[in-house]
């Protein structure tokens, strides 16, 4: 019986820039930041109130996972905003939207009342987009 999700990957174009976005702008906590050899790093962050869900900020490079060609295609797709990976939750969407916007976070949709709820769409520094909703 599966009981929990504990790791999920987000492919990013640059781990240093992703660190700045997720930690300094979104306020996520660093869970593990381990150097794994020249130019390689295992970096995971957690939403502030969810310390047991590690979001792996996974760089895209040619190696065992991707060929040169696939890595280039992945980078292209990520930067084009092809991927929407997850739904984040906050206590108050308007307040969170105003704060993140003041920190330079890009939104492709401002807070909007939809039939399924109150939602905004934000974009990370690589081009991945996320839904942001509120739960009061």
């Amino acid at each position, binding site marked *: 019986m599966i009981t929990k999700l504990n*790791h999920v*990957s987000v492919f990013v174009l640059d781990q240093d820039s992703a660190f700045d976005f997720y930690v300094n702008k979104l306020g996520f906590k660093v869970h*593990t930041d*381990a*150097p*794994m*050899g020249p130019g*390689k790093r*295992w970096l995971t962050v957690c939403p*502030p109130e969810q310390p047991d869900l590690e979001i*792996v900020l*996974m760089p895209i490079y040619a*190696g*065992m*996972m991707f060929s040169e060609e696939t890595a280039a295609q992945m980078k292209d797709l990520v930067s084009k905003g092809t991927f929407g990976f997850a739904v984040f939750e906050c*206590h*108050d969407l*308007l*307040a969170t939207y*105003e*704060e993140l916007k*003041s920190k330079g976070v890009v939104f492709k949709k401002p807070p909007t009342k939809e039939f399924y709820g109150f939602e905004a769409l934000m974009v990370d520094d690589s081009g991945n987009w996320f839904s942001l909703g509120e739960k*009061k």
Partner: protein
Amino acid sequence: MEEFPRIYLYRRIVQAKIFIDEHFSSSIDLDNIAGEAYFSKYHFIRLFKSAYNKTPHQYLISVRIEKAKDLLKQNLPVIEVCEQVGFESVSSFSGLFKRITGISPSAFQQQELKMRQEIRRVPLKFIPNCFAESNGWIKNSNFEEAS
């Protein structure tokens, strides 16, 4: 039209929250923040709590404790951490830290330092095997064959 004043109020509340984020180490007078946001104290507290699920005072405490955790992870002495996050007395800081986190600042620091040493010593213990294999960090990986 109806949204405009609401957004205006939100911006004031967000500014107050960011003010706390940036000045948590000083002695912050929450009455002054309410004044700067052009609200009465009680109206301000009610709006702040509605946005962040915490009163401004509770939020200030949580920011200080979170910052203290970050500084303790950097191996700073507890007394220095206490000063840097805006507490005047080590005993009140330590008591509050333990009440909120369930562990004393020094025990938290030992636990974190031990974990960080372990991450440096055996990083693969902290990386799910499938990810380690797909990055080529495990010798004799069978990732390609398995996929």
